[in-house]
């Protein structure tokens, strides 16, 4: 099998597995959306309305699991993710479409920034092993294990509440209606700064450490010595030889990090009241909103899959050796 065929088979298989898992998990779990909904309203809707809700949600029909599975695929292939229970009757696709750009925008950008920044700093620290740069290591190791929400909440307490430099929550001025105006974009940037900064700070350390370790390893490779022997400028050696090769494992980790984009974002979205897919998923989970849960999970998985695909190609572009192996 050729490289591309094998990759294609892998992606199709993974997508199938993820989509199926996505179908199975909510059904394996205890709990019932209607009771959960009534509970959530804490008396604001009458308990007698339970049956009406069941009818509404289409939970009254009896279908075998297999029938449900087939139906699920049929709808999915039509791009129909169903209607949300909690936000009835809004289609899941609308909710997801509303949340996804924010997550991708903010967390995606900050993950990329963290990756670039961390890789750059890690390159420096790794290259300058044995100098003052080593003293950055304890700081980095410390930040690599700081719980995100902890950092975020402290940041809010300090910068939003005490100093008032940034807003404490939201993704843009609540008085604005999204338009493509400078004012709106400025507001988005202003509101996104603190969340993005905290995401970057809490995730940059991992990149620094990973890159630093790879740099230390790669620096002792023969070809780096050859580069020195050629009398290349230190910049050319670091960037062209050491970092260029050390970054390869970082690229693979980056795919993994893309998985965390959505996972990590959940906490960020909670802490900063930022709209996004992670928090939507969290809400769906706590309210047993199957269709929404499935929709979010599906979108998350597929985007990770796409990210993996991109990273696969990036890796192949960066490392000519992989192009030949299977």
């Amino acid at each position, binding site marked *: 099998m050729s490289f591309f065929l094998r990759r294609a088979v*892998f992606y199709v298989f*993974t997508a199938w597995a*993820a989509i199926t898992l996505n179908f199975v*998990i909510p059904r394996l*779990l*205890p*709990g019932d959306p209607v009771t959960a909904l009534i509970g959530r309203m804490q008396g604001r809707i009458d308990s007698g309305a339970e049956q009406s809700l069941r009818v509404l949600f289409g939970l009254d029909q009896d279908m075998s699991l297999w029938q449900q599975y087939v139906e699920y695929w049929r709808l999915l292939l039509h791009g129909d993710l169903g209607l949300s229970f909690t936000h009835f009757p809004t289609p899941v696709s609308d909710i997801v479409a509303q949340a996804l750009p924010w997550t991708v925008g903010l967390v995606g950008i900050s993950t990329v920034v963290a990756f670039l920044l961390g890789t750059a700093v890690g390159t420096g620290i790794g290259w*300058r*092993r*044995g*100098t003052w740069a*080593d003293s950055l*290591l*304890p700081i980095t*190791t*410390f930040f*690599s*294990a*700081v*719980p*995100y*929400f*902890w*950092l975020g*909440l*402290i940041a*809010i*307490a300090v910068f939003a*509440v005490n100093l008032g430099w940034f807003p404490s929550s939201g993704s843009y001025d609540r008085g604005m209606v999204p338009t493509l105006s400078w004012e709106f974009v400025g507001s988005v940037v202003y509101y996104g700064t603190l969340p993005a900064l905290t995401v970057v700070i809490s995730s940059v350390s991992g990149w620094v*450490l990973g890159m630093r370790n790879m740099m*230390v*390893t790669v*620096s002792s490779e023969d070809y*780096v*010595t050859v*580069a*020195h*022997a050629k009398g290349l400028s*230190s910049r050319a*050696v670091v960037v062209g030889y050491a970092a260029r090769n050390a970054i390869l494992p970082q690229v693979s980790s980056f795919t*993994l990090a893309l*998985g*965390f984009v*959505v*996972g990590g974002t*959940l*906490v960020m979205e*909670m802490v900063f009241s930022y709209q996004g897919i*992670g928090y939507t*998923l*969290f809400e769906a*989970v*706590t309210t047993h909103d199957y269709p929404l*849960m499935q929709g*979010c*999970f599906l979108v998350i*998985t597929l985007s*990770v*899959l796409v990210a*993996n695909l991109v990273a696969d190609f990036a890796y192949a572009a960066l490392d000519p050796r992989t192009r030949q192996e299977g």
Partner: protein
Amino acid sequence: MFLRNPKALVGIAILAVFAVLAVLGPWIAPYDPNQVSRDLLQAPSGAHWLGTDHTGRDILSQLIVGTRGVLVVGLVAGVAATALGVVVGVTAGFVGGAGDETLSAVSNVFLVIPQLPLIIIIAAQLPSAGGITVALVIGVTGWAWGARVLRAQTLSLRRRDFVEAARATGERTWRIVLAEVLPNLTAIIAAGFVGTVIFAVLSQVTLAFIGITPVSEWNWGTILFWAQNNLALQRGAWWWFVPAGLCIALLGMALTLINFGIDELVNPRLRSTGMHARTLRRRGIRPRVGFTPVVRAGRPAVETSEEER
């Protein structure tokens, strides 16, 4: 040798403190962490070193008693994920062929499925998702990365001559895997283990914090949960919110430092500089690739001008 590495030493010291707290926690905690008192939300004092919470419970005691839960979860998840990763990864790498294809496919699927959301979904639905459950869920969902790295490494090891040589000597397969291949994977396994433990601790704390898992079992996440739900920061009760987060970061830092130590122990290239960092500094030598330091007896190192610094 390991103990001469200052990084590893610091890491081990921190970890040892936490381990002692984990084992002896309930006995050395000054108070019962559940014991409410009339000292509501007191700042740190002689009686309560880290102050009290909104019902007058002693925070230091919560922190001490909570250590065990954190370490156990980290350990169980780390062991579970590492074991799964080793079994799957090494098997896939070693057997090759269809077995490899299947196992790689499975681990790739697990790799692509976002872990934290999955953990949240599962943990949220389990009737009582206690610490061990969470640890197992983390372990079961978190092995794939290790498996992938180990598989790649095993593949390359499998082609090494010493494995062939062991076969040519007549070793049995299981022995080749256990005695020849695995020891060469120690650094990777250790790094994976440390990574998983940190991830598990962070996940557990996060799950507790967002209220997915029971808050009755004391762990550092539970403390943060109560602190956050009772507006510790808004009320200026830093002693309630800050220490638990610091402990988590310290634990992670300790593990990373130990991992550095392991790295430098198994990587001969790092060993010497790592161990002699202090001597080097004293003698003014900075080992650099590409520019060997020149130290003439009695004189300090030649300080060549460096546009790099």
